[in-house]
């Protein structure tokens, strides 16, 4: 039986985190469009702020990813 290496497992976990963060970005984009339709500036800016933080987190995760 082949066991996966710890490094491999870390890379897979990081990749899963990144996929989750991208899914969250899609959700935030729908919130932004909803805020635009509702002319809700507060919601639009809140969504943008969280979206930037999430993008930053995704970039930070990339550093931990091996090939």
């Amino acid at each position, binding site marked *: 039986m082949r066991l996966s290496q710890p490094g491999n497992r870390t890379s897979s976990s990081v990749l899963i985190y990144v996929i989750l963060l991208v899914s969250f970005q899609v959700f935030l984009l729908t919130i932004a469009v909803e805020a635009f339709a509702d002319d809700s*500036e507060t919601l639009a800016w809140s969504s943008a702020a969280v979206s930037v933080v999430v*993008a930053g987190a995704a970039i930070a995760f990339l550093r931990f*990813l091996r090939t």
Partner: protein
Amino acid sequence: MNTSDTDSEMHEAVPTWKRDFPYQAASEEEVTRREFARYLVLGASSMAAANVGIAVWTQLRSINVGEPRAVVALDTLAVADTHLFRYPTDADPAVLLRISEDEVVAFSQKCTHLGCVVFFEAEEDRWHCPCHEGNFEAATGAVISGPPTRPLGKIDVEIRDDGMIWALGQVERS
């Protein structure tokens, strides 16, 4: 070793699915996990930029709330009567309701759920959207039931001394 032996060895080496579907792409390139993740992060960053762009657009755009104009004479409407008109542009259906002798209200006729046209139900004293059974309060446009989450778009109206009802502009939501 004869030819049949060599053939059987080759058959064993090649998986069955590959023998059944011997498809070979012109250039099969491997994408590493890191490259794949980089594309994802690029997508996430683009979405964040789009999100900020939408926020800026929401902040800076100006919404046409309409210019004051006469709509209809008060004495042509009985209590609980409605009058259809267009406001603030000809593409925006609106409806005016006389709720008492000296009180009128007006709303955008577009349901805030998916934009169907609402109409007044006098027996229930409410605005009703037939598409998805959304209901709004007659006097305020607040949601009573159904899928809409936002109230109807309100239009400021007043009765002037000459007996005409004037639309003054759409009420901006905070």
